[in-house]
């Protein structure tokens, strides 16, 4: 047993010695997991010569499956670069301009800020929805939803055509008419994307306050991912389910509309000098072609 330990110890020291040789710091590239909506949106936009980032990300990349982990990793590492939904952005990190443009309401809506994605509300096409679910959907489709998108840092879509899936009928913004009393129906079951938690919590609170009820009594909310949201809507038997997806939805049994746009901010450590990056530079960083921060300026 002693011999085994001795050999193992020797291996450790060898490895440490070999590591100490290349002390120059590389950029820490931090991305989300393969099936994340945030990553999908990011990979689609970041391209060079027509080749997108998907499938070409550097093997040195760190993958986190939580926005918070991306934020804390960037906040504690001067060489890190990552991306998060703009609603989750906080002071611990710094967002950079992309091609000279900062993410904001206007730049996202007019499309000049490229890294963005829709937040989608889903319901079943197969079963008739309960009155209450129907009514809550109307609420989400109405102008009242705007306060909630603002509360969550996302951008409300005004254009009726852009609120619908490509090739579908436009979805107008209606004025929500409050019913005399809370419409009938069981608890509204909400499942889907974790990115939309802030938005949906705010909407639930607003709707419950409108009817002066406790939100806990009329909503059952559980967010574990867009695909679980989709599956729950597809398997809906009661007409109580509303799904949330942070990427566009094309399933044939699902009715959907785009409630708001979410910009994805590229973030770096506060202590770095970088303020602006081009899409091409981002491509090179995330594919590992640019390795050091010094190569950027």
């Amino acid at each position: 047993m002693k011999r085994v330990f001795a050999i193992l110890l020797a291996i450790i020291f060898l490895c440490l010695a070999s590591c100490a040789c290349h002390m120059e710091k590389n950029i820490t590239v931090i991305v989300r997991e393969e099936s994340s909506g945030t990553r999908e949106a990011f990979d689609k936009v970041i391209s060079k010569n027509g080749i997108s980032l998907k499938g070409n990300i550097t093997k040195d990349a760190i993958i986190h499956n939580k926005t918070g982990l991306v934020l804390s990793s960037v906040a504690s590492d001067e060489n890190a670069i990552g991306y998060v939904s703009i609603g989750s952005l906080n002071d611990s990190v710094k967002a950079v301009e992309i091609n000279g443009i900062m993410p904001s309401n206007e730049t996202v809506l007019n499309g000049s800020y490229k890294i963005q994605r829709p937040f989608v509300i889903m319901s079943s096409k197969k079963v008739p929805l309960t009155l209450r679910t129907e009514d809550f959907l109307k609420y989400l489709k109405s102008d009242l939803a705007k306060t909630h998108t603002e509360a969550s840092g996302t951008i409300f879509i005004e254009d009726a055509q852009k609120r619908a899936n490509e090739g579908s009928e436009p979805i107008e913004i209606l004025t929500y008419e409050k019913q005399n009393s809370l419409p009938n129906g069981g608890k509204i079951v909400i499942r889907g994307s974790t990115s939309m938690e802030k938005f949906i919590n705010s909407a639930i609170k607003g709707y419950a306050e409108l009817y002066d009820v406790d939100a806990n009594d009329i909503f059952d909310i559980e967010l574990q991912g867009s695909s679980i949201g989709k599956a729950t809507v597809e398997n809906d038997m009661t007409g109580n389910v509303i799904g949330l997806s942070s990427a566009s939805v094309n399933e044939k049994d699902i009715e959907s509309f785009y409630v708001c746009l979410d910009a994805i901010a590229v973030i770096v450590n506060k202590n770095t000098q970088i303020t602006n990056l081009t899409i091409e530079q981002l491509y090179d960083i995330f594919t590992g072609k640019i390795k050091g921060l010094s190569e950027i300026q």
Partner: protein
Amino acid sequence: MVTKEKLGKALFVLGAIICIISAISIFVFLIIKSAPAFIKIGVLDLVFGDNWSPSVSDNYNNALKGSYGIFTMIIGTIVSTLGALTIGGVLGYFTSIFLVFYCPKKLKPIAIMIINLLAGIPSVVYGFFGISFLLPFLSKIAPNNGSGLLATSIILGIMILPTIISLSRVALESVPRQYYEGSVAIGANHTSTVFKIMVPSARGGILASLVLGTGRALGEAMAVVMVAGNFPTYPNGLFGSFRTLTANIVLEMGYAGEVQEGALIATGVILLMLVTTINIIFNKISIGTVKAIATTQNSNKIKTKTESILRKINFSKIGEIASKIAGITVAIILFMIVSFIFVKGLPTIINHPWFIFGKFQFGSEEITILPSLICTVLVAVISLIIATPIGIMTAIYLNEYAKKEGRLATIVRGAINILAGVPSIVYGLFGMITFVKIFGGTSSILSGALTISIILLPTIVRSTEESLKRVLDSLRQGSLALGAGKLRTILKVIIPSALPGILSAVILSIGRVVSESAPLLYTMGSVIKQIPSSVFDSGATLSVALYQLSGEGWYINEAYATAVVLIILVFALNLIAELTVKGLSKRLKGDTNEGKSKK
């Protein structure tokens, strides 16, 4: 009377059969669920492919757009486990020697309790410690931010320490005292006796502890996912992103497409096979140990050994120093983890009392963990209601009814060993494809509790059986001689005397419920929300809440505070378990004597 006896036996056999069914169904369901993926992707491409780039839109009817090879992760899992074994093994080996032979007598019970505490700390807390303390520290010598093989091995190494230390300690303590005395009598000093006689005699037990630690490291998910980097590639050097099998499941299950989900369950199957292999090896070693001890009961051998070692005492001196250093290192590590969490978390608890007892409000910034606390209690109660009777019934069957080498008993023991080794993330997968499906497709407290109850089974069976074994045979014979039936003897005499052991198993099981998170993530739910109104509601336990709070980045302080609450809770449970056992066994000693004399 006879029918009652038969009924009783049938009941105990039933418990044993439930254990067997649980173990088998885990394999069966996972294999059935992953079979389409194995077929669609191809077994070889899945297991030996080294490109993992899943496509969410892939389904079983159309051609695949993504690729699903997990070989890089198999290698990642094996290498990181070896790393953990190097760090945790060396440290644990010397610490156990320190505890048994060098630790001051007064310090020892405290040290043992603290090591048990280390075992109870939820893996999420370790991961959290890794990401906010270890990685920044390692980044100073690393070319990247510190994530990778070294960080993972260190965290895993710390996590398997308690397993290795407590098992090795037991092995060292069970070496007959005469060995020591004999060696000293011939003139060897304390240190050379320890390293040349005592440690080699406990070799089998120590090896077994390492194997068991390996099992734990293989199956660990929540901490690894935070420090490994997770890029699906081969580990390359000490630093650099890589992914383990467990991390693959945790990372992608929530957003998985149809084929991807199958491939992730297949990942679970491969993991299960790795762990089961380790388990079989463990059982071989345990049997070997017993034989080895029997053969070394040969005093001549000791004598010659003692003589030979007197010549090279210096080597043992190094061992002595190493054990002392190891003991101190483990103490420092534990102190660092706990104080780091407390320093960061306590201010939140003190400044925001609503954090613990507030009412949950949607859209409010004031997070409260009261609902999570209630969820945790609910899960603990339900899972114990299910697992305790089954566990006790099985243990009674094994100890009171089964023949020692009987076929059924062997199968039951095998099933229990398998259940004990299944990684918790695999339990999570199993719960997701069985209980969650049964209860309408959405996660619920009931599904979570059912999943956890299977996890608890092996612990309860094993500790109950241990305490049943310790009940004196004279008690059994006495009761039978007085004309009591077997069932009556079990219910009135044996169970009461084994009660302290059973109770402490139950209390420690609560600790397990409190600290588990991987199996609950996809069975019970993960959103922090209102107090549940029924067991069909979903909810997050404290550990899951901690994972969630640290995850979205809005409530880091609350995450630390939750970690503080968790550590205090686990510590309190450990303490209660200790005191119950002590208190009850004292009282029972008096009781049974009286009872005996009455009869």
